[in-house]
């Protein structure tokens, strides 16, 4: 038996390759289905996959050999006669073939019928044993495989190309490839919304161009893809001029444009943090509760990224109104993603920024705070039971909801206009930019 197995693994590479290809295909199919359809944990699927490979491999090797054997002897057409024949025994090729097919079927059926994994493993173990037995039986007769110890041209060139690809992989930066694609998309977007060109576009095409820009910005933010800052600024300027000049006559088109502009402003700021050299990322691990109590964290002259955990992280302000904002920011580019905030109504702000900073706050709930909106990009934010202050500065609200909030807005025209728009929306998400 050892010699038979050795023959498989050391000599006949053609059949083994076929066996591996079939095993790999079935293994990937199995693991992907178990992960995506049945939502099984990764560790369990990995164990299942290992057992499956362990079982299928000898099974498929035996199967492929048996097929070859039958082909070689030109006896495929007499399979039926073989089974019916009184000479039919296990040491004839068809015996193990039927056993393997039967056991593989049992394995697949048991997998779906049985909710208990140990039964599945038992069946797979049995399959493994019988498959090995089948290999042994089928190789009692010499299969006369061809022995070639030379590498073919295909193998040589294929190996050379593979080695070149693998050696150049560390030098190929995926983020650079992605950045090149995003730059190209931004270039096209910039030309599509040039003010002269955009003025003559029908509403539908204009809306589609806006949506494309929003998609580029949102995708790049989501996957942290950097881009050429000048190009981002160019698209932003073109979009701003187009939004001011073009009058689409349709509210949904205008809203799409505003949403694209906010996404682009957020991306421009995001990009500054991404391309800043050595910009640190502050990861908030979930820990026991996912909550952190902070007094004050001043952020000065730099770039930093605060990232909350996937399960949600919240920062609680220490209950002392005299401390001011928890994050006073000056001369910095800062991104807060998925970091919730609660000040328990103690008149403390989450962030306070100067005119020279670029701040993006996204995917968060801000509760019980006294927060000034000016000069910060707010994306997908929910303000609850908070006091909202605005005094006519640059305003970027993308899908921002105000729930049970008090508004302390300036008496200037812009502030009052914004207040009216926010109140009109009630508890619905607001998307607006001051001056547009």
């Amino acid at each position: 038996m050892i010699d038979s197995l050795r023959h498989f693994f050391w000599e006949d590479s053609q059949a083994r390759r076929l066996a591996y290809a079939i095993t790999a295909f079935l293994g990937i199919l199995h693991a992907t289905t178990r992960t995506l359809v049945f939502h099984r944990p990764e560790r369990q699927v990995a164990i299942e996959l290992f057992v499956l490979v362990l079982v299928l491999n000898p099974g498929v090797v035996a199967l492929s050999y048996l097929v070859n054997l039958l082909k070689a002897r030109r006896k495929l057409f007499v399979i039926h006669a073989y089974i019916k024949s009184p000479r039919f025994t296990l040491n004839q090729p068809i015996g193990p073939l039927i056993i393997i097919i039967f056991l593989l079927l049992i394995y697949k059926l048991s997998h779906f019928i049985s909710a208990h994994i140990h039964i599945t493993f038992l069946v797979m173990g049995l399959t493994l044993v019988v498959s090995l037995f089948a290999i042994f039986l089928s190789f009692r007769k010499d299969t006369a495989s061809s022995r070639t110890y030379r590498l073919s041209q295909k193998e040589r060139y294929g190996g050379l190309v593979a080695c070149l690809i693998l050696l150049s992989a560390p030098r190929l930066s995926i983020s650079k490839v992605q950045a090149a694609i995003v730059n190209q998309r931004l270039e096209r977007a910039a030309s599509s919304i040039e003010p002269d060109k955009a003025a003559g576009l029908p509403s539908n095409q204009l809306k589609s161009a806006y949506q494309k820009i929003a998609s580029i910005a949102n995708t790049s933010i989501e996957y942290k893809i950097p881009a050429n800052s000048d190009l981002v600024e160019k698209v932003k300027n073109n979009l701003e001029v187009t939004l001011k000049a073009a009058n689409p006559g349709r509210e949904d088109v205008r809203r799409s444009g505003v949403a694209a502009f906010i996404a682009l402003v957020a991306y421009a700021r995001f990009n500054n943090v991404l391309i800043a050299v050595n910009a640190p990322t502050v990861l908030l691990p979930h820990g026991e509760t996912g909550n952190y109590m902070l007094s004050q964290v001043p952020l000065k002259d730099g770039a930093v990224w605060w990232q909350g955990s996937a399960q949600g992280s919240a920062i609680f302000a220490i209950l002392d109104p005299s401390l001011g904002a928890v994050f006073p920011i000056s001369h910095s580019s800062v991104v807060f993603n998925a970091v919730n905030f609660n000040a328990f109504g103690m008149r403390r702000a989450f962030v306070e920024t100067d005119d020279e900073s670029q701040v993006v706050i996204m995917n968060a709930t801000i509760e019980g705070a006294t927060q000034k909106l000016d000069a910060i990009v707010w994306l997908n934010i929910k303000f609850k039971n908070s006091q909202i202050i605005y005094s006519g500065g640059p305003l970027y609200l993308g899908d921002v909801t105000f729930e049970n909030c008090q508004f302390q807005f300036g008496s200037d025209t812009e502030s009052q206009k914004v207040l009216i728009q926010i109140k009109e929306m009630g508890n619905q998400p607001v998307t607006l930019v001051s001056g547009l």
Partner: protein
Amino acid sequence: MKPPPKPSFRQKLWPPIEPVVLILLRDIILFFIVLAALLVGFAGIAGLKAFGMPEERLQILETIHFWAYTTVAMLFLLDMVLKTILEIVRKRP
């Protein structure tokens, strides 16, 4: 009459191991080719991200890609382990 020249160290070492090395080399080359194909697939998925492909579809591709890596690694390692075991336990002529 001159005695035949003594075989060099290389001449003594290489002939017995040549078939084994070539068989292993063939498997390693095949593994490298599959690995390179998976690497190209990885770059392709990263490119699709930049092109803005929907997250749900990307998740499917990423899952397939991850399990393809795992399966190929398992197959290669299993093959190597079995080869080694069989070489150790085989009967020497």
